[in-house]
């Protein structure tokens, strides 16, 4: 970020709710089916058809709202009117001024938090494929439309403009994704389009009022999000510094070109003529229903991080929670394992639980802590525990990872000192860097069986310190 400027970012995240069926009909909500196979009169918007709200969609939306700390309120649906060929009714049923979830917050791992303005429900559109010509809607030879996605339930989570950097935006999206997964509200796969992000970006000099914002669309990955925000902020600063004004507009991220491109200007944007959807009745969940949803809420990432930190402090906490390994680590600590070693392994050496059990994980960490296995050996044993399971002591024995006795280690160290007198002189002079040199050489000579700590101790004795 250029000095003397700050970014103001708000994100709109669309997530497909992980329901069995679509939001207003009984068609399956399924990714990747043959085009136009999960359709019916309702989601095709055929004349005479009427919507009936999916209870499971409401439940997932409310669960997400509670997880975001929102107030879950009585709500209504509106029609958002505009013509678009992949939208069967030429209006989208969405929530407007009375959304189901309002006023929440996401706490990020770095201690900052981002406000949530609302998380409302709406229906997804179909998907167009433009064939031939320029490959865009207005210059293609033909357009094909798949309505399988039409009527898939969405929740749109609108943040407050509390985000001040691309890094924080990334952290916010990752955290929101973790919450969507933890609540079961969505499978939140950006690559399949079940989670989509639009970014509202503006810049200002510190202390000044908000600048004019641009909405960036077509962000298909976290990487795109970060790059697009960086690019857009720089672009706006250049515009302002050259004495011009930023125009409020929608811009599309061009991944290949690494830049945002102007779409249509918001000033000439369509008037959506919102009005209450007369085919649906107000959604007024009673206390019993709200209570059931609240009771079913699983533990959320922020609480999980807090719980893990209390048991095992370290830099890996956020990542371990994100990977869903925190229960394993906590259970292993409970089983008598070493908290520090467990957290470190979970952070660096365990990508999936596999056949690893809390008991075997705990036993492994104790062998290592007691100096019976080196860190390198422990990593090798751990890989086998994940793959096949078993008793770590036996696996270590089978691999010949018996810890070396001290006299054997001492003779190897002494041999190396004799071979490298210059390095030994430096060690005696207090040059700590050569400790690494000797340790590496010992490891090489012992094929990694030596305990690094023991080597350091011997070196220290020989150097007379």
């Amino acid at each position, binding site marked *: 970020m250029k000095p003397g400027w700050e970014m103001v970012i708000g994100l709109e995240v669309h997530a497909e709710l992980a329901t069995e069926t679509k939001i207003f009909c009984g068609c399956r909500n399924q990714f990747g089916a043959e085009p136009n196979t999960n359709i019916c009169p309702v989601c095709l918007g055929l004349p005479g*058809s009427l919507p*009936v709200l999916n209870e499971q969609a409401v439940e997932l939306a409310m669960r997400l709202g509670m997880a975001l700390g929102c107030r879950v309120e009585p709500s209504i649906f509106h029609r958002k009117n505009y013509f678009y*060929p992949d939208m069967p009714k030429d209006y989208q049923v969405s929530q407007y001024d009375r959304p189901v979830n309002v006023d929440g917050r996401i706490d990020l791992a770095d201690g900052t938090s981002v406000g949530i303005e609302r998380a409302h429900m709406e229906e997804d559109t179909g998907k167009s494929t433009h064939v031939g010509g320029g490959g865009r809607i*207005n210059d293609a030879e033909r357009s094909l439309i798949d309505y399988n996605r039409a009527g898939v339930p969405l929740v749109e989570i609108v943040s407050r403009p509390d985000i001040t950097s691309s890094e924080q935006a990334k952290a916010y999206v990752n955290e929101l994704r973790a919450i969507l997964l933890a609540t079961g509200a969505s499978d939140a796969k950006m690559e399949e389009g079940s989670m989509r992000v639009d970014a509202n970006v503006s810049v200002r000099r510190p202390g000044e009022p908000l600048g004019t914002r641009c909405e960036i669309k077509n962000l298909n990955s976290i990487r795109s999000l970060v790059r697009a925000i960086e690019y857009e902020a720089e672009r706006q600063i250049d515009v302002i510094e050259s004495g011009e004004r930023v125009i409020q507009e929608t811009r599309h991220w061009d991944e290949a070109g690494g830049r945002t491109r102007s779409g249509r200007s918001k000033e000439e944007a369509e008037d959506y003529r919102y*009005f209450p959807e007369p085919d649906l009745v107000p959604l007024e969940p009673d206390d019993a229903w709200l209570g059931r949803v609240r009771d079913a809420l699983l533990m959320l990432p922020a609480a999980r991080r807090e719980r893990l930190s209390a048991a095992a402090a370290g830099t890996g906490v956020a990542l371990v929670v994100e990977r869903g390994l925190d229960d394993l680590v906590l259970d292993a600590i409970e089983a008598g394992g070493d908290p520090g070693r467990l957290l470190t392994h979970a952070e660096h050496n365990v990508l999936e639980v596999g056949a690893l059990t809390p008991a075997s994980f705990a036993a492994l960490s104790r062998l290592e802590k007691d100096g019976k296995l080196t860190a390198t050996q422990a990593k090798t044993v751990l890989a086998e525990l994940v793959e096949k399971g078993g008793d770590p002591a036996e696996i270590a024995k089978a691999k010949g990872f018996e810890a070396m006795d001290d006299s054997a280690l001492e003779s190897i160290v002494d041999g190396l000192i004799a071979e490298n007198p210059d390095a030994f002189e430096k060690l005696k002079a207090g040059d700590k860097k050569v400790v690494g040199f000797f340790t590496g050489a010992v490891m090489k000579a012992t094929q990694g069986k030596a305990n690094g700590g023991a080597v350091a101790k011997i070196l220290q004795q020989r150097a007379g310190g």
Partner: protein
Amino acid sequence: MTAREIVAAVQSGETTATAVLDEHLARIRERDGELHAFNLVTEDAARADAAAVDAGDRTGPLAGVPIALKDNLCTRGVPTTCSSRILEGWKPPYDATVVSRLRAAGAVVVGKTNLDEFAMGSSTENSAFGPTRNPHDPSRVPGGSSGGSAAAVAAGFAPVALGSDTGGSIRQPAALCGVVGVKPTYGAVSRYGLVAFASSLDQIGPFTQTVADAALVLEVIAGHDPMDSTSIDRPAPSLLDALEESVDGLRVGVVRELLGEGIADDVRRRTEAAADALAAAGAKVEEASVPAAIYGLSAYYLIAPAEASSNLARYDGVRYGVRVDGPTTGDMMEATRTAGFGAEVKRRIMLGTYALSAGYYDAYYGKAQQVRTLIIRDFQAAYEQFDVLLSPTSPTTAFPLGAKTEDPLAMYMNDVCTIPSNLSGDPAMSIPYGTGDDGLPVGVQVMAPALGEQVMFRAAAALERSLS
């Protein structure tokens, strides 16, 4: 023959469903070339259905009764046009809930009837396929928008027809054609499969020759439908039993605001005669007031077009019906809609689009909804004092074709008495009550509070009896 007579005669073996159907088809052949009540007569399917009744394969409370359907009710595999070019060639893949229920009750569908395009009009002259004529005087309109259904029953083409009523579209043509027409409580009959005009106002109901037939049909088509979120979660009301009940002590209010300026003298006199007849039968008849009713027409012509502008957006040439190609998708949509919609439909889409536009919403659509709330309150207050309310159905008897086509406002005035009940959601029905100075039928409207169908039918049956 009435529907009840047909059911009894078919059941007793006095006649067959096929013979009944033949009689009706013969009348259609004889006269529908002139009247044009039907867009389509489904003779082959009707014969098969009648034969199934005669074979004992189809039974039910309407077994063997020929029924005509307004052509905005979806029928599986059978063209459903809304009398619009834009739906040319479209065959719905499903039956409307009311159609399924009629079929399950043994009814024999004889065809689809003409209407003002997308139910927008009061004379059936706005049909893309030409007007329907009034069986009592073919130089005159049958009313609208369900003019085809009203004419079909009046001409004896079918003892029962279904229509839809958004702003009087069942009751006004029933009055002009001299038949019974019922708009049930909003939500009493499922709208699933009724091509939407104005969703918060649309309601399906029957045309019949008698009050009892209307009760019979309503018992079949009403009742909760999980496919319609606005459907009231209640079973169909029992209405036939209410018909014989006395109106002794019934509190009847004659709505002052609906008997004022613009109501023809002969129509006013017939309405007063109806009030007198009820009084003679023991009812307590007094003047009632629903002050906000006079704003109904204005509110309606903002709310209904607003909803229509959205409901009719889907006719864009992308998925079904007519498509007129253009260089871009937007051009194609525009060309399709320009060619496919008639003048009145375009007028209302523009009105509604304007009423919902940013900056105008509060002044128009928002204000109209406030008026709607006032009308609901005024009716509620009136129903604290009265069991039913009485008014004319239409300000005049049937008018000549072409008389009002150049003056939309004069045409809109036809629905001044019927629209308030659409806005309030309450049930209302029109009963033929004699003739005007021109010898043409006059209808009287009986209105009741929401879900008050029983008391409404009770009063209607008493009026019917008073004429015999």
